[in-house]
């Protein structure tokens, strides 16, 4: 009862409108981000009552590479998964030569000399992210051939 009273009081302040929804885009290339087309601040306020889930609430550790083209060269599963889900941020960090996602990639690939490796990646950026439609497999294969 207490909960209901408290809830009703909060509800008194809400107004209605069509709910703008987040739509998630999955993929192995660039541009796979959650798009939140929130047209009004009130909608953002309403969203906070449930910590809106983007529908992808699973418990199983599904491989993030299930729909992706596999790398030509041998590459560990975890590295492929990481790159597939972090294509944009890795591109940004390789382009500037530093960053946490880049450090994570270094750790997954068991790179010995990170400084030299990251410098080599930046110098070869346009061979690694060779086009706008590059995919995870391409990026990792390119890294293997140019820097590893």
């Amino acid at each position: 009862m207490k909960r209901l009273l408290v809830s009703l009081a909060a509800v008194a302040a809400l107004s209605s409108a069509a709910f703008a929804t987040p739509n998630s885009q999955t993929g192995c290339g660039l541009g796979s981000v959650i798009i939140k087309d929130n047209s009004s601040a009130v909608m953002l306020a309403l969203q906070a009552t449930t910590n809106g889930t983007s529908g992808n609430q699973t418990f199983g550790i599904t491989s993030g590479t299930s729909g992706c083209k596999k790398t030509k060269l041998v590459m560990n599963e975890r590295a492929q998964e990481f790159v597939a889900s972090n294509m944009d941020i890795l591109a940004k960090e390789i382009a500037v030569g530093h960053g946490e996602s880049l450090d994570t990639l270094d750790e997954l690939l068991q790179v010995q000399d990170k400084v030299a490796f990251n410098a080599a990646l930046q110098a070869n950026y346009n061979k690694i992210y060779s086009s706008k439609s590059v995919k995870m497999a391409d990026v990792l294969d390119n890294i293997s051939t140019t820097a590893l």
Partner: protein
Amino acid sequence: MIKFFIFSVFILLNTHLLWAQSVQNYKNQAQQLHLSQKHYWHLLLHMNGDVSEIDDPNFFFAKNGATDPAAELQATLEAFFSDEVKDDNSSICKFPARYFWLKKELHATDFPTATCKEYEKIFQRVDPKSATLVFPAAHINSPASMFGHTFLRINSSFNSKLLSYAVNYAANADAEKENGIVFAIKGLVGGYYGRYSLLPYYEKLKEYRDSEQRDIWEYDLNLTQEETVAMFRHIWELNGTNSFYYFFTENCSYNMLWLLEVARPTLQLRNKFTYQVIPLETVHVVKQAGIITAEHYRPSKRTKLLKYETLLDEKLNTLPIQLVEGKIKASQIENNRAIDIDQKRYILESGVEYLEYQYSRGKVKKEEYLELFHAMTTARAKLGITKPLEIKTPPNPIDGHRAFRTQLGAGIKDGDFVGYLGVRPAYHDLEDSEYGFLRGTQIEFLNLLASTSKKETKIEEATIISIVSIAQRSLFFKNFSWRTKIGWDNDYLTQNPTFGFSVGAGFSWGNELGFFYVLGDPVLYQNSKFHAGVGGSIGCNVDKYKDFNTNVEFTQRVYDSGETQMLIKASQGFRLSQNKQIVLKYDYKDKIAVEKKKDEQTFRIMLKYYF
């Protein structure tokens, strides 16, 4: 052959009998040891007094398991011994925490076993070593997000925290299928099931830091590896269970506390909360328990862009936006000899951040995004390696004032001495010290203030709910500001408090010294009749120095009766400590008494105490 057959049946029956004897022995032993009354068993069942908070029959083996821990324990033992399957679908694999604990408490050596391939696979993947409590802070233009959110990160052997897994509790709601109002109401009254999820930390960062523009605060906990593993076993048990999600009480943060208590049963965190569980308050409680070892800050994309605004040269600062709008090309920046290399880097870097920001809001189409992203990053890659952006860590939300406020004050109103007494369960307003809070945001719930003087004792304010979001416009951010309020206040023309509702919108600009704003608020009051009006407000707030807080606001209103009204509010706050503040206030209100215009002026000093 027949002998063999009879022999096999004999062995089978005996094993069954032995099994049956064995489980009965354990059941008796459990009863004698009063195991079902033990605190840990109640934690595993999420017992709150006499009832479990888990609303899913699949979580219990006994029919009345949710209300009878003894029956549940007996039924659990039965289930372990009578499993027909010995794989991940067995009771043993589904309830590893209960299995582990019962085996230990009963000093059992002949418990049945099972092969839990799925569990083992995920256990190895998650690799639980220690835990961190994560708090995504407020999002500008969403004051309700000021309440924040918490989830746990299970740290692994990897150095990189990005590879850790986060365990999160949220309402299992498909926003696309629901109307906005229904969605909000259901979240408040338990209309949705809450579910636990386990996903890579980098996915949570993409959601909160990048897409939602929220700064992230991490609090490392001193849980041992054994405790973290125990917590993981219990998280596995919660996989797929349904419990009703209640925004105010059994919400995301509250359920994280269960996990921490299961990890270390001596912790008493949940009992600190009675009628509301505010996420940041759970972080305070965890800190008070003394289990936080370190604090870390991750700036949001918005914070990074605001930093670039201070680094970009004034003459060049429109270039990142022009890049994103396609008005100039990245190669033009790269080849322009007139631009300093440092500036070129800032232009391209902030351009990419701004591009991602616009794309995540749906302002840029994917094809355009890919084109521009590729061009800008390629150009930047030719400009060498730099040091990371230095972003100063802002005040930690955990050092901000607590949620519940009381205030005591004294003042003079039109020559009379007045005493004040106030209480507010949640949460923060523009006159409270901003330390640890997001600038320009306010969210109040049941703000009550009463005054007493020789003449009368009256209610000054009884706000049911008020929300303010004053977001400063800047180079990259063109937010608008808004506010709303419903409840009784003394800002109407009459002497007595009147019930009213207002909603306003406008703009704000600021710098590191403070900010000012311009808002227009239609207002509707109701006493015996309805009275409509419109107000225009100009205000400013100086907040540069952490212990001082200055607010001034001028409002001019005109009502449907033709009456005009001026209101002035001014306050100067002094932060004495995390949870104590003194505020000097001046209020000017035009009132109408006996058909004549009369102004009411109040000077007061208030002591605010938070806990």
